[in-house]
């Protein structure tokens, strides 16, 4: 995972298989990075993510809640069709924005 800070914006670039195991390794780093600076906008980039399941949905919803507590905004970027369909099952696009090549 790479983290990029861009003004008042924080971008997380995830990689590989984002399952329960990987997310348990990443979670605290993400929570702290957001808590430290309270960025206005957080982007989660899935371009290099080859797998995601319901643990990813739980992670995204939890980051939404973390940001929403101080009115920050969450965006998912570069989801594959499959990832988009999976996330859509939970209804999370009512809360979280999406941007990227396929869904501009």
């Amino acid at each position, binding site marked *: 995972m790479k983290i990029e800070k861009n003004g008042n914006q924080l971008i997380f670039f995830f990689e590989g298989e984002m399952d329960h195991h990987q997310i348990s390794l990443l979670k605290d780093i993400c929570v702290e990075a957001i808590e430290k600076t309270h960025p206005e906008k957080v982007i989660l980039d899935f371009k290099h993510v080859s797998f995601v399941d*319901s643990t990813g949905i739980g992670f995204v919803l939890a980051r939404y809640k973390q940001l929403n507590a101080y009115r920050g905004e969450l965006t998912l970027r570069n989801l594959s069709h499959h990832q988009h369909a999976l996330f859509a099952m939970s209804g999370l696009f009512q809360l979280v924005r999406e941007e990227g090549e396929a869904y501009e």
Partner: protein
Amino acid sequence: MNKMSCKFKSRAENEAFARTIALSFLMPLNAAAEEMMEIRTLVSEGVTNAIIHGYEGNREKMVKLEIGYDDHGLITIIITDKGKGISDIDQALEPLYTSKKSSERSGMGMTIMQTFSDSFDIISAENEGCTIVIQKQLHVNLSAAE
């Protein structure tokens, strides 16, 4: 009918192993990429549930994964744990229901498994472990058409 069966410890790092095994075993079926992605997700959801709910983080228990397929591209996946079991199966199946809200779970695993499969059964009772039986019919079976 071709079949495989394996057992591994209830450790999160084995989730990737279970998905990879499923992928390798089903390789001869030449399934579409989208269908293989759904199968990886089915295995991942079932195995993750066994590890975090069935065994509640105990890393020394065993999870069993069995996969079979027939000549018509009908795949059967069975995932078994001998953990704490499910007392209310209807509730467990409800979209967004989770007994572990505090650990950032969405409660979508069962719904995803139902969506990506053609048949989905849970055999479980409190303190009697949990077995899930999933069937999925592949739609384009290139190896059969050869």
